[in-house]
């Protein structure tokens, strides 16, 4: 019997670039992201890199196809193009610009919440017959850290979250993974199909070279709508208002190490030691 194949689906999210400071709208109703620089969520880059490295390690026989998918507006094509340039074979955009909405989402330009992204990816998985889904552990805009876990729950697949290491076991449908947990590293063995979410130390995403960028332009991006996949977007949590956190502190500059020691003394922390 030939060794089992990894049919990989990678989810990528378009977010406001990490270096850009976002602002709230004047009426406190939401976040003003218009005309800001966007990029692929950094944790999703780790997921794309992990998929490409898996094929480099195991070869095209065991990793015959890597598909990237994004759930969002037309502008996500740019994000998918980046994934294609990194080595993904083809891409699917699930376009939400004209998504039918089941209720109060009507008229709002909010992005889909993690549960609906997970539902969409689950439906896409069943079309593509993927057996390994790679995602970032969280997106740096809403910081939810949920999509992978929700998806694994929906599909009833094994899950490896916050991963710093992924190793495929030889000739078997097993993965050995290291998870970055609060108290150190937890090691699990997972049986496919699996949902994996990637943490920072998993790899270093490759730079995109110009030839690869040009080659990516010839790779296909298929566009589907959420209704093609039988998913209706909902608002589960409505934003009532947004605020910036309370003003920063007033700093008192100390001039010498002696002043610092005196301050520590005054704070009472030297007595404890």
């Amino acid at each position, binding site marked *: 019997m030939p060794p089992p194949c990894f049919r990989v689906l990678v989810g990528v999210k378009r977010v406001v670039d990490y270096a850009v400071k976002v602002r709230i709208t004047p009426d406190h109703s939401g976040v003003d992201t218009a005309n800001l620089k966007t990029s692929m969520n950094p944790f999703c880059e780790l997921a794309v890199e992990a998929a490409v490295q898996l094929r480099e390690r195991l070869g095209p026989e065991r990793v015959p196809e890597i598909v990237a998918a994004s759930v969002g507006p037309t502008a996500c094509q740019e994000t998918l193009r980046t994934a294609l340039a990194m080595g993904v074979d083809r891409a699917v955009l699930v376009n939400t610009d004209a998504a039918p909405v089941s209720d109060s989402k009507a008229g709002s330009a909010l992005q889909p919440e993690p549960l609906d992204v997970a539902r969409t990816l689950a439906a896409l998985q069943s079309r593509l017959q993927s057996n390994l889904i790679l995602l970032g552990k969280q997106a*740096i805009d809403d910081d939810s850290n949920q999509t992978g876990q929700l998806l694994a729950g929906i599909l009833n697949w094994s899950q490896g979250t916050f991963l*710093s290491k992924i190793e495929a076991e030889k000739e078997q449908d097993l993965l050995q993974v290291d*998870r970055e947990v609060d108290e150190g590293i937890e090691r*699990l063995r997972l049986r496919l199909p699996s949902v994996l979410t990637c943490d920072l*130390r998993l790899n270093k995403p490759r730079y995109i070279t110009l030839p690869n960028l040009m080659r990516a332009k010839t790779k296909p991006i298929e566009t589907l709508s959420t209704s093609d996949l039988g998913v209706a977007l909902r608002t589960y*949590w409505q934003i009532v208002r947004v605020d910036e956190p309370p003003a920063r502190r007033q700093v*008192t500059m100390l001039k010498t190490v002696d002043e610092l020691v005196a301050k520590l003394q005054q704070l009472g922390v030297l007595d404890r030691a």
Partner: protein
Amino acid sequence: PSVLVLAEHARGNVAPATWAALRAAQQVCGGTLSSNGNDAKQTGHIEVLVFDRVDSDMGAVLKQLAQVDGVSRLVLVCDGHCRYPVAEMLAPVIARWSAEQGYSHVFTGGSTFGKNILPRAAGILGIQPLSDIMQVCSPWEFVRPLYAGSILARVRLVPPSEPSSKTGWRCWATIRGTAFEAAQLRHDDACPTELDITDKARQYLQDAAPPAVEWLQQTGANAERPRLESAHIVVTGGRGLRDAEHFQAFVMELADRLGAAVGATRAAVDAGMCANELQVGQTGKVVAPELYIAVGVSGAVQHLAGMKDSKVIIAINNDPEAPIFQAADYGLVGDLFEIMPALLEKLSNSHKK
């Protein structure tokens, strides 16, 4: 409201994030709860779900939880299958138990334990949970951070649109540990907590298909220093320390002198100066100790997200323009490689006196 809190524990202690989740549950149930059942203020009740764990002392854990004000029942699940915190085993039990009992809220701490397990259980039931609640505004309205905490959003649960929905409003969330005090304890023994060592929930475990996951090992827990999440003092090192030797010689040394926990920026972790479990920030841990000392930390917004709620912040850095000084209460500008040896020297002198 009826709130189920999933408890995290290790080595016989309830985790700090769980104490915070219990406090949030108390606030959802109407502020100050009394153990006196006649108190009109009491508008809800709290139940706690605890899974036995191979490395913990269940007697000690149950004793701690039984003292929490407003907790009417402890549901203990003991089974060989749940003794490691594996989401594939625990999540189906949480989903089935909570659906059957009809809780309006399911909370747990926003640790890697909670964030791994709670959304999986929510996915099974088709519930959209909230991550990292920082404030309870009403039983259905909460504040949570966006964009690494640079924006705080107040969000309200939208009820299911089907008028005949039997499921009702279901509010699931992880609770940010630093944003809540520990749960209030009961004043007397008037209403002892019921202990339910449930065979039903245990049955759910056994009904589940054999898990597609095998727990192999856990490494790295450092028991010698205080834990980052619960320490009163945290000393954190950043890129300015340059290498692991100086991280050890300056940051770990200062932490040990002060009885503090050690933290690190992502840059320090990436540079190989220390283990990732020490990382403080948007993608690491969120801490709020009484005193936070940042050594060689520039103060990127992603790092500030993990420590800006500390009570007192002291920053030591060679660059007077570093953003960390805008987040600090006290600052000292200068060369770390002169300041830190001098500081440690003076601290050992002051000890000898």
